[in-house]
């Protein structure tokens, strides 16, 4: 389905009516699954993902003597923290058959999914304090209910929220979003605008990249670009992407704080020592 990107220049509005620097609606919830150690549900526009975290728990016998990611077969792949004594982060991603327009059968060894899993595993284990949980496994399972672009970003954000809910020690939020550019690789026009948070239609048509940063900093954990684009576009796209990550981080932070406040009010948890004077809003 060709998208007429030339229309952008007329009103500076994108296909879904956003300006270049606007995120789609992000709605997130944590502690959605009572049985899980940590869980979250996240929507970025029409991209909807669920995440369940189990662990840190004792590594199963199947892990003995294998390297990280070796058990990729059935339970997803783990990349980070394969060193002895550090917790291992095992990620599995399931794309629901009804999540996109065409129902595509994906084998268990679909390389695209394996790559997603290893990216998420490696990105999170750089933020999680895996050295605090020696010889254990943190297993993250992600379910994609609906796809509308920015899939990797949504998965990373959902996984971060679920890890926070599970109470796993981490350095900071891993916040991710996408950025694109209105120019195609062939056009060398200087007027091209960078775009924040691309939906599926834009991802099909325009060059774009996924950025994940560590909290409020400018430090990039994940940078994935899969389309052809001029080098000169990269700076603008990266700047917009990093800025978007900061916005995403604030939204996620609000969700976590709101949930914490509600749980305190409901008496589900007790205020910890030293929390009396802490501002929970």
């Amino acid at each position, binding site marked *: 389905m060709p998208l007429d990107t030339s229309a952008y220049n007329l009103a500076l509005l994108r296909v879904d009516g956003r300006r270049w620097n606007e995120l789609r609606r992000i709605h997130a919830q944590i502690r959605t699954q009572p049985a899980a150690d940590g869980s979250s549900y996240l929507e970025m526009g029409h991209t909807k993902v669920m995440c369940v975290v189990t662990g840190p728990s004792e590594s199963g016998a199947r892990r003995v*003597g*294998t*390297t*990280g*990611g*070796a058990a*990729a077969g059935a339970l997803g*792949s783990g*990349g*980070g923290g394969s*060193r*002895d004594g550090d917790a291992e982060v095992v990620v599995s991603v399931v794309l629901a058959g009804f999540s996109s327009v065409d129902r595509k059968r994906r084998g268990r*060894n679909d*390389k*695209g999914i*394996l*790559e997603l899993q*290893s*990216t*998420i*595993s*490696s*990105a*999170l*284990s*750089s933020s999680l304090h895996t050295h605090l949980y020696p010889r254990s496994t943190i297993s993250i399972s992600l379910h994609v209910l609906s796809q509308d672009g920015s899939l990797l970003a949504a998965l990373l954000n959902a996984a971060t929220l679920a890890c926070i809910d599970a109470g796993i020690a981490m350095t900071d939020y891993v916040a991710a979003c996408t950025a694109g550019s209105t120019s195609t*690789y062939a056009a060398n026009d200087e007027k091209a605008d960078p775009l924040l948070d691309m939906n599926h239609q834009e991802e099909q048509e325009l060059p774009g*990249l996924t950025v994940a*940063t*560590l909290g409020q*900093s*400018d*430090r*990039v*954990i*994940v*940078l*994935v*670009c*899969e389309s*052809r*684009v*001029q*080098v*000169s576009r*990269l*700076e603008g796209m*990266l*700047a917009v992407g*990093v800025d978007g990550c900061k916005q995403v981080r604030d939204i996620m932070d609000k969700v976590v704080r709101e949930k914490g406040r509600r749980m305190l009010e409901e008496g589900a948890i007790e205020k910890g020592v030293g929390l009396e004077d802490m501002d929970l809003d």
Partner: protein
Amino acid sequence: MPREAEPSLNEKTFVLQALQEKLRLDGREFDQYRPLELTFGEEYGVAEVSLGKTKVLAKASAEVTVPYPDRPLDGVFQISTELSPMASPAFEVNRPTETEVLLSRLLEKTVRRSGALDTESLCLVAGQKCWSVRVDVHVLSHDGNLIDACCFAVVAALRHFKKADTSIEGGVLTVYTPAEREPVPLGWLHSPFCVTWSVFGEEGDIAILDATRAEEQVRVGSCTISLNRHGEICQIAKLGGTAVEAIALLNCTGIALTKAKELSSYLDGKLAEDAKRRDKSGRAELLTAENDRVTG
């Protein structure tokens, strides 16, 4: 399952401390490649690349098949990678490791999805016959930086490759042997090259090019950037690992571009040299049926 031996604590500290003091074990600069060597085989489409002690062999081949029903006007193009126990004891036959999956995805994104090969030119009869071009990559020896070496080998093999000339008369497809007609090169649009940065240090502030295996084993992250000489990014993959300042990544991209241009001109030189060596009679110009086309 076999497992790669981890470097000892002493080795780790040695490599890392040397890097902190801006030294590498083999005395290279941080942004310097090991000596790159490319040799073409006797056949068209065989390229052997060695980068220091890393050795990679790529072979391109083509056959006539039926195109995919959903893409009747496109040919088939696939890249397959093989990491055998020959390269490292951690690799097993028929069981792809994470390294292999990521490597083949990267090659696929760099060469196939960036449209380096014009797959439409592989179509012979719409919906019925097309060329299927295949590149097999074999890693003969693994001393780090497989990605860059493999990508260079794939591009070199494809640029060197020539497929048999064909003609269609009255719906009958004739494939000519090299004796009948000079084989024709593939429709090539641009040459992408991978440049991989390895990142070290708590803050990810040390970045080096072309890491050896010892360096790869202690790195905290990596970033592979694929570019062609026209300054187009074909793919960037920083798949997790330690966080790196955004500005540093932009600098890395700038240096990667100059490296990609160097690789590009090296390959062009080698191809010209090989063409000259093969053209003993000096009549290649006359024999070719190729049209002028701007290639990259």
